[in-house]
């Protein structure tokens, strides 16, 4: 997927995700400007992995990311509130029992 390249020379913003070693997920490292995906990957390598910080890189056009509304975070994340029973620590009667 490639974002709309503006008519001028202002390159679009890409978000960069780096996998630091095999077995770990890609983690957001930062962002950069690039005219297309190939250049975004090369720029990301030069900018975010100068010291062997990664074995794999994803670049995603910033405007392709959908995110939750920061003003509605209360309502949006309400469902898990008060549901402590979803955590193992809720169950205290088994304390002292081995391998549980």
């Amino acid at each position, binding site marked *: 997927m*490639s974002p709309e*390249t503006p008519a*001028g*020379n*202002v*390159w679009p*913003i890409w*978000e960069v995700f780096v996998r630091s070693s095999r077995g770990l997920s890609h983690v*957001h490292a*930062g*962002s*950069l*400007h690039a*005219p*297309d995906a190939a*250049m975004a990957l090369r720029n990301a390598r*030069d*900018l975010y992995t*100068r*010291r062997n910080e990664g074995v794999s890189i994803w670049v995603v056009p*910033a*405007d392709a*990311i959908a*995110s939750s509304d*920061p*003003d509605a975070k209360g309502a949006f994340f309400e469902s898990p509130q008060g549901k402590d029973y979803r955590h193992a620590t809720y169950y205290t009667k088994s304390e002292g029992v081995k391998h549980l």
Partner: protein
Amino acid sequence: MATQTLQSVPAELTPEQLEEAARHEAEGQAYFDRVMAEDSRIEPRDWMPAAYRKTLIRQISQHAHSEIIGMQPEANWISRAPSLKRKAILMAKVQDEAGHGLYLYSAAETLGQPRDQMMQDLMDGKAKYSSIFNYPARTWADMGAIGWMVDGAAIANQVPLCRASFGPYGRAMVRVCKEESFHQRQGFEILLELSHGTPEQKQMAQEAVNRWYAPALMMFGPPDDDSPNSKQSMAWNIKRFSNDELRNRFVGMMMEQVKVLDLTLPDKDIRFNEETKKWEHGPLDWDEFHEVLKGRGPCNAQRLERRREAHENGTWVREAAAAYARKQAEKESAA
């Protein structure tokens, strides 16, 4: 994340809309105040006071400009580095400075300020950057003094900024600080080798230390009683220690390290105050500081000229890359 919501304000608002807007502001302020009280972090799309946003854009972009302009005094010595190893190290360091500039521009962009605008402001002479980079690097030993003292002062300043209340700034600073420690150590090593070399080399190292000492101390900014923005920045958890606190702490570190170098600091008034338990230093020439900041330092014109030149020389590259990307996208959509 660089995305953000920009809300346009309609020309005329109904009383209900005005009320709604006021409620939104009040809720936003309350949330912001809570985040500050808990010493938590503000993220780009959170509500924030307009002055907080403005202060951060100014500070982060000035910081980015300093990294970019800071490439120049050192790039000047790449072709004259005394060995292939030193040349490779210096190139890596200058490349890091470019990287630091880009991390910081990215952080500032999350506040809604386009990078091109910031760069244009720098080239137009509208934006400030650290006064230290308007001093010339006269000898190879200056590469050592810059690494040890200038990067050392930068680290002392930047470590507390890793905890700045604005998330993207703090995260950029974590990355920067990790990389800066290599810069400081390589500078120290250059000075150490020179100070243990021939008498001429030792003298060259001493003279570089003499040249950079006062400008490095002034990197922490004006004295506390002459630093009008500090108080607000500390209330917003952007700044964690005052200019003088950081400066005094830095002087103490230099005093220990200079002994290992077998050199001296050009300041007879340095002393440890037993009462305050703080290091003190001699008077600094703040008139000079303000002159350099206003653009009348030894290298201001040259630094900006070089920046504009580099930008102009890169125009065809930016145009070609954008044209290629457009062409590929057209091919893709035609296929």
